[in-house]
């Protein structure tokens, strides 16, 4: 009698156990699948950053590397220069200038890519669907080809005996070659050229699903071409513009190859300053400090762009 009453209970218990066992097995498989990726990136992606943080508070070793004694010199060095004779600190703006130049160039790059990239993104989104893929492919392809080689090909064009100077001289516009290489202008052009696809793709993504009939609606309500653009197209593409600006600004701030080749090592940017400390500069703590400051700036830019993107959604939602 008791057995019969108990039976349904054990049945459901078995089922429950089976379900629990399956969930447990699933968790175990999931952990097994995730562990290598999280482990390798956790150890070899995050740990180095902590090491850099530690290094930035140490003293430089004579032949590179670090001396294990605490010091804030790496951060002080940004703004001040220690006098070698009487050990007093004097204000030094050299590094601040490099940071300033990097910001200036990165922001100009952002504006340049936006001015060129927006029309292209709009143009692609307005193409018939069968042509869009070809355009997207054409725009993304240069992004995958080697940045170094693309910068080098740019160098071949802007140097004194390059195509632009040769063409201008043939046309009689200039008598002698114009100095274009190793100027801020060359670095800016190189940065715009390098990061343009990063601006086009997100803006295109935000315009891709856009119903162009809305333009007609605006037009029917007597909006001019400019009004339609300002009040319909720009708000719709705003998330794309914000994302594109962040995607361009971040790598432009940390650029190394472009200023190295097109700026000729004279027009330094943060990236070059950091790399130098680990090469001929032999000041690892200072390099680490500069890298961490750059990373902090980038993270702030990322957060701001996330907020700018979210604000927009709230307003429409």
């Amino acid at each position, binding site marked *: 009698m008791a057995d019969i009453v108990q039976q349904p209970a054990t049945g459901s218990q078995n089922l429950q156990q089976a379900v629990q066992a399956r969930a447990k097995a*699933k968790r175990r498989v999931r952990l097994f699948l995730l562990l290598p990726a999280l482990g390798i990136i956790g150890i070899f992606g995050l740990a180095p950053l902590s090491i850099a943080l530690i290094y930035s508070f140490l003293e430089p070793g004579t032949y590179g590397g670090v001396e294990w004694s605490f010091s804030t010199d790496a951060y002080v060095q940004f703004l001040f220069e220690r006098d070698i004779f009487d050990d007093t600190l004097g204000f030094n703006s050299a590094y601040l200038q490099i940071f300033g130049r990097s910001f200036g160039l990165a922001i100009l790059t952002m504006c340049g890519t936006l001015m060129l990239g927006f029309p*292209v993104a709009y143009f692609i989104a307005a193409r018939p669907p069968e042509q869009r893929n070809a355009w997207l492919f054409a725009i993304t392809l240069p992004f995958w080809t*080697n*940045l170094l080689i693309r910068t080098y090909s740019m160098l071949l*064009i802007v140097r004194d005996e390059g195509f632009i100077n040769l063409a201008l001289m043939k046309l009689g516009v200039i008598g002698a070659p114009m100095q274009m290489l190793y100027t801020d202008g060359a670095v800016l052009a190189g940065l715009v050229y390098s990061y343009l696809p990063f601006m086009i793709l997100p803006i295109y993504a935000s315009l891709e699903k856009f119903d162009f009939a809305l333009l007609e609606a605006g037009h029917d309500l007597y909006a001019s071409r400019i009004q339609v653009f300002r009040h319909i197209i720009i708000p719709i593409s705003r998330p794309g513009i914000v994302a594109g600006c962040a995607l361009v600004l971040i790598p432009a701030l940390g650029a190394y190859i472009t200023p190295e080749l097109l700026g000729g090592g004279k027009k330094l940017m943060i990236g070059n300053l950091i790399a130098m400390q680990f090469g001929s500069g032999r000041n690892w703590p200072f390099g680490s400090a500069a*890298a961490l400051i750059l990373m902090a700036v980038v993270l702030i830019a990322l957060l701001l762009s996330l907020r700018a993107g979210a604000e927009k959604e709230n307003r429409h939602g």
Partner: protein
Amino acid sequence: MAEPLRHKPTFLRRATGTRELRRQPLFTGLSWVVLLLLYAPIVILIVFSFNDNRSVVRWTEFSLRWYAAALDNGDIRHAAVISIQVAATATVISTMIATMAALATTRGGGFFGRSAAIALINQPLMIPEIVTAIATLAFFSMLRQLTGLSGLGWLILAHTVFCIPFAFMPVRARLADMSETFETAAADLYATPWQAFRHVTLPLLMPGILAGAMLAFVVSLDDVIITLLVAGPGETTLPIYILGQIRRGVTPEVNAVSTVLIVLTVAMVAMTFLLQRNRK
């Protein structure tokens, strides 16, 4: 008509429709100019790598002499071997790891910490490369001293880390697009989870995995900054060799090597693009 209409009434515009409105003639012209600007430098580099003289502006005659010179150059051959060793190993390891992680984050159900896991996997993309490079250099030089190990393994490890997010993206995209009905059907037919994965999920996922592997390969092959700082002596990859030559002055051999790299990259990316388009 009391007031002149600013526009043709809609019924008159119907014929031309929205097509005309959506067109911004200025944008069309600008887009073609941008496309030209994007490709002109690369095309010039490629064309003049076949030039018989040393100039990169004056064309004399078609010739393969710079390719022959590059092939004959021991340094270039050595760099090519290192590049391929590093890229191939990093690609295989990172694609396997990325595929596993993509399976866990798409087929593992919702679980606590999933978005954190995805963010961690994408971490190498969010930090400026120069920062990753110097941090890895500091970390590895410490580990090298501690373990006494040296060799190409360190460089391969550094490449594997930043290749994972690139391999992860297409695999995850493909998995997200794939319906789970096939896997459910396999399970209904008494396939074990492994059998269902091996004979159903994996074949369907293959284009995504291939696309991921090719992106990882291209990214590893093209890397400059991390390799520049992490590579030990004698571990010069092709891009590092090219950078060294450019610093010394332009040589036509570099144009030939660059062209080979460009063609390789373009071929692989084109294949990736086709693989990803076919899924639709």
